[in-house]
């Protein structure tokens, strides 16, 4: 049921900070699931025997040592996916909080100028 939103709630929502560890883990989980499924999807497709499965995805090995399009590779990919997602989530959360702090500082100065 909708209830009226109070002004302090809107302002709280604007300046609410992102939880850095939570975003790192959450993005890591998503990255892990995505890379695992990306590999698993190729492995589960019906292809002729000796058909080169994942000839493009396997090129990820250039960046992710040991990765290959196989079930053990999918598990390793999930680990790498978690790492990459976590780094991206960490960077996004830290940068999001940082831009808000910087913007807040700028706006406080602007507010002081408007008050003069």
């Amino acid at each position, binding site marked *: 049921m909708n209830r009226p939103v*109070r002004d302090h709630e809107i302002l709280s929502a604007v300046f609410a900070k992102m939880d850095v560890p939570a975003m790192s883990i959450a993005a890591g989980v998503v990255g892990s699931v995505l890379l695992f499924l990306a590999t698993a999807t190729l492995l589960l497709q019906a292809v002729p025997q000796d058909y080169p499965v994942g000839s493009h995805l396997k090129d990820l090995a250039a960046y992710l040592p040991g990765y290959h399009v196989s079930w053990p590779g999918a598990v390793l990919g999930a680990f790498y996916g978690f790492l990459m997602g976590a780094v991206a989530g960490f960077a996004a959360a830290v940068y999001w909080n940082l*831009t808000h702090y910087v913007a807040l500082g700028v706006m406080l100065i602007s507010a002081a100028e408007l008050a003069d």
Partner: protein
Amino acid sequence: MLPNWRIDVVTQMGNYQNMRAINQKANGVNLKLLNAAIRFNALMLGLTAGTLAAVIVYVATHASIARWGSDSGTYLALLAIFFPGYSVTSNGAWVGAFWAFVYAGTCSALSYRLYGRVLGTRIADILLSTVPTENPVLKPSVLRLHGSSLGFAIGSIAALGLFSSTAWLVVRGTADESVHAALFSNYIPGYSVSILGGLWGAMELFALVFLACLLLATVYNRIVEKRHKKS
């Protein structure tokens, strides 16, 4: 001269308690403040995502050059289709960073605008606590994510992105040569580098991104609730 969104936020921040009485609408929501809040955070997200994307493209280009030298850029060079002037060179890295900033910044800002619109007056749902704090600006609450709104917003922009890029490949006449784009059909059954295939792919991508966002929001919110249970 301050831009309009900043004047809105600054004015509202400065005396929001007085403004509350003036700006209340019939449904009890200060829409002017809500819209200013959405515009402000859209800009913040645009800057965040744009900068991160620019750094990633810049670093990836240089990493590729460092690792493979003159043979570098087998896949990265494909970005030139969407990033005019891009190449896997030192100068190209700057061009790529610029376009990555523009694309990621625009898409993220649009995503947040959509997220804010969908969330609308349910904005209080994303707060860990709706108890008034002494100063909501200087002592901020912790953000929660609204999974379905996030999924709708990012899913829509991703779907639009896939359809536009597919349409661009068709319009420039290279659809038949776009073997790498066609590989999407491994993950998006029915996708092809054609207008119809792009439409179908966009719908399926929307569903996939929607699910990924639900997962992200669920995990994030669970951890936030656990970590801040005592406070």
